[in-house]
């Protein structure tokens, strides 16, 4: 049995993972990154609109401040975000954005040469710093450049199959070297999960094909609670057909939404902010129009940019113009873009404290897979990239401090024993006869989640979803794997990922079923109002043999008492 060892092992090579690894490396630790794809292929690369920081670069009567940013974020979260976490997010935003600029991010600029900022949904100020509409691409490439310069080793195209826990502590993982077909235990004094979202649980998602939520599953499997998983963000504008993201910046720059009757229908849903309402409200607005028969055939509305003019579109939104041409055959300079809501982001995730620590010593999490919680029931656009940077740094720093206190030597015998157990579990999977193909279950799960646990929810749908997910879990036991060798075994990977996704789907449905109110992205037709008296609290889901067990914990309120949320 081969055995690898590092001080800190980061799982995931997107923005949060790379930023955490850089922090650990700069502190002089032995850190490595493990990722199922080359880091530059991570889903962070697809982020478009920007990253929030109250720089106040756009001239205004009042100067923007971290307090304004925090208020917008908390109101946007429908008061479910932990306010101490939001304060940190906003206070540290400027340092993180300036640092990215110093490392070479090519932000768009104001007249005076400072970083340009644009308005985004649910924000009182033009606060979103951007690099045209390819901000994620710019940031990810810059961080990868830093990783290259610092010579941080990357285990590319390796999967993390399981955490190794001993005496109540995470001591490493089982890594799967996909090309060589080897399962190799990796010892680490600190393991940091930064695996991103689980969008592919849904049929319609803006997420990359690789977004299966594996990190959330690894933590959940090891007994760490998942927090607020019923809060799933549906982005208002995904391209009809492929559901590729059409950035909120399109509306930030002045784009209009029209239904099939030619009405700017957002007047009915967010009379003041219109198209720039927060995502949950705009997504529900669009879906309501479609459901009431005011959408176009197939179920979409129009996002119209034509009045912005060629120059502005080419300068500020070249990426989505290219996407619309490539994937829908529509040039936004000449025609409106057909859009519909699609799953986009997970507000919930692995429960962590303000430094990325989970309840399992030795295990940390940051980025979309974590729930600090800074987004509460609804995330504002521009805050996810910010979260990856702020909490990537904090988790990386804390993991470094904790790793420093750990002793150098470790018991190799435990790894040998666990490795043998793991191998025999796998053999069981290989011995099964295939009675049903994996993809059929996966496709059923996706359709189920979009139709029964989507934008609008109700008890009867969620009860059906609970039963169907349980049934799918049973059927998964009859899924076999034809290919018996480990190297390049896509079937095995898809099977393991589906196993994890079904567990996460169960947690989402269970949380949504339990929460008898409407808050942010979680909208219950049978409980259409927010109910602070009973539900101003976070959901925690723990894994048991019978499915998730739910507990609840209070929201941290500092200086922003819950108020009415109108836009």
């Amino acid at each position, binding site marked *: 049995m081969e055995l690898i060892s590092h001080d800190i092992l980061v799982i995931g090579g997107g923005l949060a993972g790379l930023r955490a690894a850089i922090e650990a490396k700069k502190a002089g630790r032995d850190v490595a990154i493990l990722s199922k*794809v080359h880091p530059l292929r991570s889903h962070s*690369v697809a982020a478009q609109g920007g990253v929030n920081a109250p720089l106040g670069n756009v001239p205004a009567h009042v100067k923007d401040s971290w307090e304004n940013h925090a208020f917008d974020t908390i109101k946007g979260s429908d008061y479910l975000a932990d306010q101490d976490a939001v304060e940190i997010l906003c206070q540290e935003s400027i340092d993180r954005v*300036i640092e990215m600029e*110093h490392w070479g991010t*090519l932000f768009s600029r104001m007249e005076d040469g400072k970083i340009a900022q644009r308005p985004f949904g649910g924000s009182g100020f033009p606060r979103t710093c951007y690099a045209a509409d390819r901000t994620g691409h710019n940031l990810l490439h810059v961080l990868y*450049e830093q990783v290259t310069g610092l010579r941080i080793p990357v285990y590319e195209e390796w999967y993390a199959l399981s955490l190794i826990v001993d005496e109540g502590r995470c001591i490493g993982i089982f890594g799967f070297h996909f090309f060589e077909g080897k399962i190799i235990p990796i010892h680490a004094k600190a393991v940091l999960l930064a695996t991103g979202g689980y969008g592919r649980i849904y049929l319609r998602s803006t997420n990359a*094909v690789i977004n299966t939520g594996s990190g959330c599953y690894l933590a959940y499997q090891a007994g760490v609670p998942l927090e607020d998983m019923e809060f799933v963000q549906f982005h208002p504008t995904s391209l009809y057909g492929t559901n590729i993201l059409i950035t909120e910046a399109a509306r930030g720059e002045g784009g209009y939404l029209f239904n099939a009757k030619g009405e700017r229908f957002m007047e009915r849903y967010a009379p003041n902010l219109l198209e720039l309402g927060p995502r949950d409200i705009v997504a529900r607005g669009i879906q309501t129009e479609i459901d009431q028969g005011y959408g176009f055939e197939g179920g979409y509305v129009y996002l119209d940019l034509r009045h912005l003019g060629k120059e502005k579109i080419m300068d500020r939104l070249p990426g989505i113009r290219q996407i619309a041409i490539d994937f829908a055959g529509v040039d936004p300079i000449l025609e409106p873009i057909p859009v519909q809501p699609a799953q986009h982001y997970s507000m919930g995730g692995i429960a962590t404290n303000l430094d990325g620590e989970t309840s399992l010593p030795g295990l940390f999490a940051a980025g979309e897979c974590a729930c600090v919680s800074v987004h509460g029931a609804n995330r504002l656009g521009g805050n996810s990239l910010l979260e990856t940077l702020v909490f990537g740094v904090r988790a990386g720093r804390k993991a470094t401090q904790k790793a420093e206190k750990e002793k150098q030597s470790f018991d190799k015998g435990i790894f040998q024993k666990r490795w043998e157990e793991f191998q025999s579990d796998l053999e069981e999977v290989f011995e099964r006869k295939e009675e049903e193909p994996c993809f059929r279950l996966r496709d059923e799960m996706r359709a189920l989640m979009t139709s029964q646990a989507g934008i609008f929810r109700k008890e009867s749908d969620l009860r059906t979803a609970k039963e169907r997910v349980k049934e799918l879990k049973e059927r998964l036991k009859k899924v076999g794997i034809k290919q018996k060798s480990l190297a390049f075994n896509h079937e095995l990977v898809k099977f393991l990922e589906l196993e994890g996704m079904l567990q996460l789907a169960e947690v989402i449905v269970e949380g949504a079923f339990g929460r008898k109110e409407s808050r942010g992205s979680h909208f219950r037709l049978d409980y259409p109002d927010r109910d602070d008296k009973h539900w101003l609290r976070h959901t925690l889901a723990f894994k048991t043999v019978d499915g998730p067990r739910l507990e609840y914990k209070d929201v941290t309120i500092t200086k922003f008492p819950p108020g009415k949320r109108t836009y």
Partner: protein
Amino acid sequence: MKSKVLTLRIKRFQKEKDPPQWIETFHVEPKKGMNLLEALLRIQDEQDGTLSFRYSCRGAVCGSCAMRVNGKLVLACRTHVEDLMDKPTFIEPLPYFPVIRDLIVDMSIFFDHYQKIEPYLHGKPVSHHLEYTMKEDERKEIDPYIQCILCGICFGACPAFIRDSQFLGPAMLAKAYRFFADSRDCRVKEILDGLDDQKGVWGCNTVFQCVKVCPKEVPPTHAIVKVRGKILRHRLTSLISRFWSLSHRVG
């Protein structure tokens, strides 16, 4: 006449098989708006779980799914199945790179070259709390080169590698120019010196193959020509100044 079924003839390679290389034909029922990557994923799900290829974003931004389709170098996700219905479509891995399995190639040489240009900003001193200022004109000069997604397609198309495999290649020269043109970077002479040989800008055939194939419209040849101009100007200036100092000493 257009067929109703998509026919893909895929060049396979699996080193443990005998023979390791073969061409296999698959048929896929097309759906409206389907792209080639979706068709390949359908095959992997429903027909042959061993078919290997890379994928991630399915939106032409991650650079994973570069391959050769009917002789053209493309991203599979950006290739419409609708355009492939006339005749069987021949799919091969991206050329130039060694094949690992089926359509997966070994890109380590690509990232070795990437590392050689020290592809990170060597920033001039600046206050911790303030951004560097930059004019939009300067940003627009750099912007086209920033679009590179490092998919490797330009390496597959570049004829200069036939002469010298150590040639840095289009993507890397575009990247080097991106730092050269960036006023925040303190390297000027270092970058020019590093590119002033056959492995650098002088190794390019200036046939614009990379510009033609780039899925993100990055123009590496333009960067190469610009750097050549800068190098020549530097040489001329140093020649003139040497001549001056020499003639002064004689005088």
